[in-house]
């Protein structure tokens, strides 16, 4: 219990405030939730008092647990906590030892080629000597020594979150060719940035399916795409199959990516992906890596973890019917990995079959259960 009490009162308050916001669903969007989580964790870590790594980890973990329990369906919160823990451990281990923490050899082999590992390599050499010797009499010395390293780790996570849209859209022009017809569904900021970036170099058409179950957010997407100069069609979801024979690619957004390569996405994604499979049209998902979750969808054939407001489907002015009829308004769909062809993330493109490998590299196994 001691490490929790050692965290100062104000950082506790920050965690509670964010937990209350999450519970009331005042934080809207996975990226917004992730950003707020990182900022709160930065406060927690900067105010935390600890004398060894385990205490720090349990402080971060308990803060994370509070946040995740406040809104278990917003997976990006838990993912961010896990990511911060992973970076903290990594920075600590590289600072106290000569070599990096031994990881799976395949992952290490792959990671050698990644530019970001080389960047932290430079920081490593500076800090390597510092932590070897510190004044054991001062209880805060260890914490003080480690703090700049931790702040850098958290800053790295924050930078990654802030540049998600730019990085996903980086190679947009390689994925979309001239005169293509793209189908997309509803409103996803990531997909919107992706399509607008590609429009700078390519001339193509987008068909947007207005999602009837999400207050027709497809309409906003169509408006913003058309004002960016892309020729856009707005169609109801019912015509997805009819138009699929002319569509070259389906580009979707995701709410969360699961460990088996499947995903939770907005309602309507499953019918769009199945229709695309029936026509052998590739389905591509644009998503930031902060949405990859160490979670499996074992118990639901459908991803309707969350239900929306039934009056969006059957209004109260159909007075007679409201009593006699059950109304279903699921918020998410689960899309199987077999229906998805590729994930375009801020750190490269991956097929659904290698999501498990990304999980191993990004998070530590002991953090799966916070």
């Amino acid at each position, binding site marked *: 219990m001691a490490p929790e009490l050692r965290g100062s009162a104000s950082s506790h308050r920050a965690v509670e405030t964010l937990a209350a916001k999450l519970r009331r669903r005042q934080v809207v969007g996975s990226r917004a939730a992730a950003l707020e989580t990182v900022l709160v964790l930065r406060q927690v870590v900067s105010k935390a008092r600890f004398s060894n790594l385990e205490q720090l980890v349990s402080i971060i973990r308990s803060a994370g647990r509070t946040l995740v329990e406040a809104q278990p369906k917003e997976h990006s919160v838990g993912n961010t906590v896990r990511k911060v823990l992973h970076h903290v451990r990594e920075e600590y281990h590289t600072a106290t030892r000569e070599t990096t923490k031994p990881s799976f050899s395949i992952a290490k082999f792959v990671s050698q080629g990644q530019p970001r590992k080389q960047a932290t390599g430079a920081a490593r050499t500076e800090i390597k000597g510092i932590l070897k010797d510190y004044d054991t009499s001062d209880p805060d010395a260890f914490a003080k020594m480690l703090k700049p390293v931790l702040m850098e780790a958290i800053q790295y996570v924050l930078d990654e979150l802030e540049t998600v849209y730019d990085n996903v859209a980086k190679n947009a022009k390689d994925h979309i060719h001239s005169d293509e017809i793209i189908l997309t569904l509803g409103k996803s900021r990531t997909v919107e940035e992706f399509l607008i970036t590609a429009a700078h170099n390519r001339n193509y058409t987008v068909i947007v399916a207005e999602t009837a179950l999400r207050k*027709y957010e497809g309409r906003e997407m169509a408006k913003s795409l*058309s004002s960016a100069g892309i020729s*856009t069609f707005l169609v109801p979801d019912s015509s997805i199959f009819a138009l699929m024979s002319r569509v070259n690619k389906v580009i979707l957004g995701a709410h969360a990516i699961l460990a088996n390569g499947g995903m939770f996405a907005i309602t309507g994604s499953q019918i769009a992906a199945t229709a695309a499979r029936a026509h052998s049209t590739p389905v591509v998902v644009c998503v930031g890596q902060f949405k990859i979750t160490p979670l499996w969808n074992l118990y639901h054939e459908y991803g309707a973890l969350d239900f929306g407001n039934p009056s969006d*489907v059957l*209004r109260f002015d159909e007075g007679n019917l409201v009593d*006699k*009829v059950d109304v279903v308004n699921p918020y998410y*769909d689960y899309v199987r990995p077999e229906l998805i062809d590729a994930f375009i993330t801020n750190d490269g493109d991956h097929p659904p079959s290698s999501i498990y490998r990304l999980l191993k590299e990004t998070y530590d196994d002991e953090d799966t259960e916070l």
Partner: protein
Amino acid sequence: MDSKNIPRGLKIFSHFGLPKPVGHTVKGDIHPAIIRLGLLFSEFRICGANARAIATLTAFKKVIQDYTTPAQSSLSRHLVTHLSPQITHLVAARPMSVTMGNAIRQLKLEISKMDFDMVEQEAKNSLCEKIDNYIRDRIIFADEVIQDLAGKKIKDGDIILAFARSSIVEKVLLRAHEEGKKFSVIVVDSPPLLEGCKALLTTLTNTSPNPIPCTYALLPALPSLLTEVTTVLLGAHALFSNGAVYSRAGTALVAMMAKGHGVPVVVCCETYKFSEGVMVDGFGKNELAPSKITRSTGDSINVTPSTNLEILNPLYDLTPPTFITAVVTEVGLIPPSSISSIPLALGKSTL
């Protein structure tokens, strides 16, 4: 539409034929019953393949009764030319449905077979009687037989999924309920027309003695509901000889998802809806809904077309035969691959 001003991308859909304005202008000598019908069609007050066919034939009965053969020609030759501008007016209000086409073709055949020597009034009465028989045999009685056949597939404890509003599916469900079967219905609906909402739900929940338990959802919610469904009942606008079903937009998605979950898809269709010819996708022949009759659930922002933004509301789509388990017609329950043998079963050489 000026083709120079359309952005390049939008031209690919230009053959859809954007909805023309309501045919208030009347060209030529059109019978008032036909003018009234044209207005009802363009306002989508009469919607649905069966309803339109019956309304058309009833209007034509009036036209025939009011018709007088000119002095120099005979009824069997001139009546057809008299009917042509009426038909054109109806097509201008709203593209012809397959059912209307089949019915009118049959009517023209009957007219040409009329006996040359018959007295005019007798000929007109005989034609009206033939029209009545057509409606009675091919639509009303056919519906009764289909209700029996499809009703046998509904058992106690079933959960039936119906999409949008099909007059025949509604009748099947009501008949099964009257026979005392206990089942529940999931009504899946979709913009742009949202037909299932008021009409179908009201009829289903107003049955006595006990209302049928109903669930209502929109099309994107379908995968979450399919795990509990026992049968999917669909209606059709037309059936093609390769077994493909031309029906309300969204039907193909329902059939596709149901097939993926192993749920049988049963299409109820009268034989007069059969069309010779083959259609491969929903693009070759389709109709766009005019924006004034589109409805939405809940609150939503209104979008107006602009330079780069176009709104399309296709009304129909084509379900490939692989997604359909069986078609119920008045000649029996048949697999979609046997559609082309229906004329044989009816005892005719052509439809």
